[in-house]
C-alpha cells in the first residue's frame, strides 16, 4: 500500500479526514483509475457532501480550462537550431570532441543512431506502404504542437531527402529588398517530410518580376484560363480598388504578355452606391507596352517614391532577376471597400465576382461582377446587404440577411444568380455563404444566425456553426441531412476553398479579436460518405494571414509577420495520396499568396 493511501486511511476516522480523502481521490482519479473500493467510497461521499462535490466538479472544470491552453501553442524562434547547434559545437570543442559534419558541414548521424534513423524511415515507409498518411492515426496534442511546416534551415546545408509531390507551382507577390513589389513563382515539386522539417531548405522563387501598383495588394486571384490576375488592394486614401494585371508566362526569361495598357484607365463608380467616386489616377496610365518596361511605366501621377525612370534598375534582391515590370492594365472598380475573402473567378474564367461596399460606409455591401474583357465591374445587387459566396458552375451564389416579422433574430437566405442577367433563384436552405465544391455535391456553409455590424453594415456569423451540407444542381444546398461540423464556436469571418478534386478543402477562420489574422486548417472529404477528417500531418489551426491557395495537392499561405520586423513567411504543404511534406520561404514583406 502506498504511503499516501496509508496516510489517507489514518485520517478517515474523522469527519475532516473523510473530506480530505474525498478531495484527494477526486483529484487523483483524474490521473488514473482508483481502486474499486475507493471509487465506491468516493461516489457515496460525493452524493452526501455538497461541498466535496463542488470541489470535485472544480477539479474537472479547472482541468478543462487548463487544457484549453493547448489551443495556443507558442512557436519557437526559427533560428533556435542554429543557436543550439553552434552552442553544441562550442561545447564539443571545449571538450576536445566535435560532432561529425559531412562535406557540407551538417552534423551527420553516426552509426550508433542509425537504427533510430532507420526507425523513422521505416515509419515513413510503412505509412506509405500501409495506405499512406491519410490513414495514419492523429498524434496526441503534444505531438501536434509543432505544425507540419518547415522551419527555416539555419544554414545553407543540405536538408533531408525530399519527397516528390509532382509538378506544380505557387505564386505570390511581396516586397523585394529594393522596396518594390515583386511577383514570384516557385516550382514546388519536392517537399520535406514533416519529421525532418528543421533541416528543410527554404523554397526559392524562380520567376520574379517587379510589379508596379499604386495599391497595396490584399488579395490576388489568378484566372483559371488566362495569364491574368485580379488584384484587390488599398490605395493611399484607404479606399480599395480592383485591378486586372497580366501575368507572365511560366518561362522566367519570357517577356510578359505584351498587352498594351489602357491610357488613361477610366475609373468606374461603384454603382449603384450613392458615393461619388473621383476619377482615379492609376499607374495603368502607362503608354509603354509592358514588355519594354524594365523601368516603371509612365504615370499620370508621380510615384510616391522617387525612382529612376530611365535606367534599368539593377536588382538588389538575391531573389530578383532583371525582368520586365508588370503593370496593372485595368481598374475595374475603385472607391470601395472590398468585403471578405470570397472574391474569385468563375470556373471557366469568364467572370469575376466579389463583394464591396462604398468606402465611406454610407451603405452596406453588394455583389459585383466583372465579365472578362469588359472595362468595368458592375454591382449586380442593389439591396446593400448581399454578399458573394462562391460559384456553382457559371452561376454565382449570393447570400443576404433576413429578418422575420416580429423576430429580432437575423437569419440567412441564399440564392443562385446568373451574372449576365442578374436573374435570381432562391435557395430553400436558410444558409449563409455556401461554398460549393467543383463537383457540385457538397457545400460548406454557415448554418446559424447572423448579426449586422453597426459600422460596416455587413452581416457576419453570430450563433451557429460552419457545416458541410449536401448540394445538388437541382435542389441547391440540402435543407437537412447529416451535417458534419467544419468549425463551431466563435466564427466571425471565414474563407473556405476547395481544391480541384473536391476532396480537399482549406478553412480559414478569422480571429475574433483581430480579423487580420486567422487560423487555417486542411480538411479531407470522403466524397462518398461526406465524412470529414483531418489527417495526421495536415495543418490544423495554424496561424495564417487572410488569403491562401489550394490546388494541385498544395496548400500555400502566409504567416503573420514575425517579431523584430521580420517579414511573413510563405508556407506550403504539399501532399500525395501517400505522404505529406512541407517547405517554406524566407521572410517576405507584405506577402500576398496568389490563389
Amino acid at each position, binding site marked *: 500500500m502506498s504511503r*499516501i493511501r496509508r496516510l489517507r486511511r489514518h485520517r478517515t476516522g474523522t469527519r475532516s479526514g473523510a473530506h480530505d480523502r474525498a478531495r484527494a481521490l477526486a483529484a*487523483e482519479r483524474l490521473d488514473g483509475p482508483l481502486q474499486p473500493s475507493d471509487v465506491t467510497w468516493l461516489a457515496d461521499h460525493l452524493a452526501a457532501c455538497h461541498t466535496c462535490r463542488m470541489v470535485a466538479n472544480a477539479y474537472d472544470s479547472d482541468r478543462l480550462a487548463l487544457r484549453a491552453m493547448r489551443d495556443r501553442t507558442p512557436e519557437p524562434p526559427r533560428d533556435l537550431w542554429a543557436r543550439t547547434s553552434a552552442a*553544441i559545437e562550442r561545447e564539443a570543442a571545449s571538450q*576536445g570532441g*566535435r560532432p561529425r559534419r559531412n562535406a557540407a558541414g551538417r552534423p551527420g548521424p553516426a552509426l550508433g543512431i542509425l537504427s*533510430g534513423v532507420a526507425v523513422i524511415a521505416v515509419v515513413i515507409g510503412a505509412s506509405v506502404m500501409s495506405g499512406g498518411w491519410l490513414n495514419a492515426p492523429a498524434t496526441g496534442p503534444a505531438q501536434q504542437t509543432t505544425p507540419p511546416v518547415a522551419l527555416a534551415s539555419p544554414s545553407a546545408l543540405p536538408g533531408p531527402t525530399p519527397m516528390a509531390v509532382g509538378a506544380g507551382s505557387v505564386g505570390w507577390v511581396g516586397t523585394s529588398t529594393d522596396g518594390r513589389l515583386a511577383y514570384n513563382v516557385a516550382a514546388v515539386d519536392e517537399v520535406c517530410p514533416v519529421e525532418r522539417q528543421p533541416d528543410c531548405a527554404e523554397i526559392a522563387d524562380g520567376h520574379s518580376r517587379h510589379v508596379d501598383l499604386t495599391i497595396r495588394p490584399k488579395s490576388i486571384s489568378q484566372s483559371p484560363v488566362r495569364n491574368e490576375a485580379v488584384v484587390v488592394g488599398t490605395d493611399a486614401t484607404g479606399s480599395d480598388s480592383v485591378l486586372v494585371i497580366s501575368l507572365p508566362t511560366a518561362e522566367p526569361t519570357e517577356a510578359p504578355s505584351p498587352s498594351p495598357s489602357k491610357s488613361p484607365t477610366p475609373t468606374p463608380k461603384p454603382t449603384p452606391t450613392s458615393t461619388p467616386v473621383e476619377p482615379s489616377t492609376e499607374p495603368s496610365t502607362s503608354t509603354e507596352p509592358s514588355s519594354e518596361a524594365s523601368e516603371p511605366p509612365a504615370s499620370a501621377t508621380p510615384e510616391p517614391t522617387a525612382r529612376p525612370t530611365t535606367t534599368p534598375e539593377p536588382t538588389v534582391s538575391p531573389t530578383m532577376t532583371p525582368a520586365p515590370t508588370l503593370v496593372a492594365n485595368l481598374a475595374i472598380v475603385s472607391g470601395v471597400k472590398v468585403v471578405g475573402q470570397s472574391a474569385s473567378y468563375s470556373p471557366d474564367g469568364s467572370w469575376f465576382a466579389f463583394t464591396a461596399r462604398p468606402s465611406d460606409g454610407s451603405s452596406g455591401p453588394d455583389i459585383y461582377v466583372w465579365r472578362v474583357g469588359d472595362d468595368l465591374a458592375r454591382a449586380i445587387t442593389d439591396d446593400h446587404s448581399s454578399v458573394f459566396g462562391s460559384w456553382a458552375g457559371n452561376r454565382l451564389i449570393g447570400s443576404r440577411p433576413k429578418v422575420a416579422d416580429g423576430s429580432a433574430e437575423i437569419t440567412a437566405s441564399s440564392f443562385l444568380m446568373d451574372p449576365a442577367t442578374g436573374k435570381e433563384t432562391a435557395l430553400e436552405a436558410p444558409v449563409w455563404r455556401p461554398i460549393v465544391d467543383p463537383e457540385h455535391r457538397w457545400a460548406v456553409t454557415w448554418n446559424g444566425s447572423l448579426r449586422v455590424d453597426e459600422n460596416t453594415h455587413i452581416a457576419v456569423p453570430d450563433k451557429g456553426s460552419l457545416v458541410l451540407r449536401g448540394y445538388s444542381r437541382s435542389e441547391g444546398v440540402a435543407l437537412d441531412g447529416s451535417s458534419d461540423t467544419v468549425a463551431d464556436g466563435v466564427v466571425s469571418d471565414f474563407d473556405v476553398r476547395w481544391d480541384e478534386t473536391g476532396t480537399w478543402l482549406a478553412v480559414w477562420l478569422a480571429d475574433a*479579436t483581430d480579423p487580420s489574422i486567422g487560423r487555417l486548417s486542411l480538411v479531407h472529404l470522403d466524397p462518398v460518405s461526406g465524412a470529414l477528417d483531418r489527417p495526421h500531418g495536415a495543418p490544423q489551426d495554424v496561424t495564417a494571414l487572410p488569403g491562401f491557395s489550394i490546388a494541385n495537392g498544395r496548400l500555400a499561405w502566409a504567416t503573420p*509577420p514575425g*517579431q523584430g520586423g521580420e517579414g511573413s513567411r510563405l508556407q506550403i504543404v504539399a501532399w500525395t495520396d501517400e505522404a505529406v511534406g512541407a517547405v517554406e520561404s524566407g521572410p517576405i514583406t507584405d506577402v500576398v499568396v496568389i490563389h
Partner: protein
Amino acid sequence: MSGLWDHEEAGAFVETLFAKHHGEIYAYLLRMLREPELAADLTQDAFVKAYKNYDTLEKPENARAWLYQIAHRVALDEIRRRKIIRFFPWTGESRGSAPSAEHLVMDAHLSSDMQRALAKIPERQRAALLMAELHDLTGVELAEALGVSHVAARAILTRARESLRQALAAERAAEADADADRAARHPAERRR
C-alpha cells in the same frame, strides 16, 4: 561529463532529439517562465545539456522524459537564480523586438485567471500540471521528468490540482471584489 562517449554519436542523437521535441520543450519552458527569449535561451541550454549528459540516458525510449527532466531542471535553476517566484505577465514583448500579431492574440487569450492562478502555485506543482495536462507526459514519464517516484509524482499532481483550485478561487474572488469596487466608485464619481 564523462568525456568517454562518442561526440559524433551524441551530436547526431541530440540533433534528432531536437527535430522531434524542440517545439514542445520550448512551449514548456515558455509556460513555466513566461518570457519568450528566455525560454528560447533555456531551450538551447537544455539541448546542450542533453549533449553533455548523453551518457546518462540509459534507455533511448525514455529520451523524451529524460529531455523534460533536463528542461525542468534548467527551468528550476533559472527560477532560483533569478528569484522568479511568479509568472511574468505575458506582454508578448521580447527583448528588442516588437510583439508579433500572433503573440498579441495569444496574450489576449492567455492573460487569464488561469495564468495568474498557475503563477501562484509552487513551481514543481506547476511543472507537474503543465507536463501532465498540456504536454501529455504519462505517469512514468512525469515521474522521470520530475525526478521522483511514480507515487510521488501522482501525489504532486494531486496537490497541484488542489493548489490550482484554491488559487483560481482566490483569483475569481479578487476579480469579483474589483468589479464591486468599480461599481461602487462609479456612482461617487458621477456625483462629483
